[in-house]
């Protein structure tokens, strides 16, 4: 993996906020359903997945993403892949 740094939720939250152009980062929480965010689109989903790959070295497939609902789900999937558990 390109980068083995551990993923903190606050770092992940900041990443989501910047990639999905959420102007007030404190408005998103672990329970936020990412598909309901105002700028969620297929393009922004792709940008998010590419950013997650660049920063954490983790690949999230479209099937994985489709099975997730909240930001916590996504965060946990990344953390699990970083630990190599999967």
């Amino acid at each position, binding site marked *: 993996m*390109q980068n083995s740094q551990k993923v903190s939720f606050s770092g992940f939250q900041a990443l989501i906020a910047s990639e999905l152009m959420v102007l007030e980062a404190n408005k998103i929480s672990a329970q936020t359903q990412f598909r309901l965010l105002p700028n969620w689109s*297929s393009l922004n989903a*792709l940008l998010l*997945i*590419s950013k997650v*790959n*660049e920063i954490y070295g983790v*690949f999230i*497939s*479209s099937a994985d993403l489709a099975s997730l609902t909240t930001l916590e789900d996504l965060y946990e999937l990344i953390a699990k892949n970083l630990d190599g558990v999967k």
Partner: protein
Amino acid sequence: MALSKLPNFELVGSTIVIPKNQEDNSFLEGLTRLEKEQLILHTGIKFRRVAPESDKIENYFQLGISQLLEQLNWEPSQIDVLICVTQSLQTPIPSFSCQIHGLMNFPLGTLCYDINSGCSGFVYGIHTVMSIMNSLSKANAKAILCCGDFSSQLIDKNDKSTLPIFSDAVSISGIEKKNTGMISHFNLETDGSGRNAIFLQDKTMKLNGIDVFNYSLKLVPNHLRELFKRAEIEFPEKEVVVFHQANKLINDSLIKRLNLDSNKVPSTLYQFGNTASASIPLSLGIYANKNSVTRAILCGFGVGFSLASALVYLSSDYKFCIIEK
């Protein structure tokens, strides 16, 4: 990996034929201004060529071959091999290569067939052409490789993720057996677990952007490193690296992952979009018209999921042009 090497071949020229009709992603319907700006920024694609529905792809190939023959000073009677790489709506009967053979009045001694391939098709096509010519007894055999699609005819006009990416174009390339002593190298691979990343359903092309991104980033870096190793290129400092023009996000990520010099990795996305199997000869030709290129690294990846890379040699008088129809 399927590694292969073939001696004594040169790419002697390419012609690209594109429709006159150009569409601009800034004017896409059903997206906000911000969404369109984001789309152009991240895909890197502003303009696309779209052939009128009444246009036939074989006429584009025919026009391009005539132009190439003239540029190279080749006679139709000299053509030993004709290979067509396309993924049109359905396999025509007879094959495109037989149709084009007839339109061009090529001789009885021309070997013809089609290859069903997209993004990696130009490199697969070169490998096929060179392998065939290597088996021919003729010393200075000449081949024509046709690649390209009218992807616009496979796209649902309401599919706002696929429509802005693909663009129509065909390429016609000349490849010649010459006693240069130079060896072309190839790495040809397939990962069929990615067969659903891009596929045709009900005569419409479906593209899953996330899966295409993932397969590209997972597979292409090691795939290319194997080619470099095989061709004994420690790091491509001198050679131009021509990627299939998928989209800016994927291609920039690959450049970063492989630590390539972006000045040596041409992009034609902004002006021509993703032109499937014509994208590598298009990008190589535009680069070669402005820079001196003796050998080039080519890398096609996508629909399949299919990967093909090569180190190939260009003739010193390599000819390239783009014509509109």
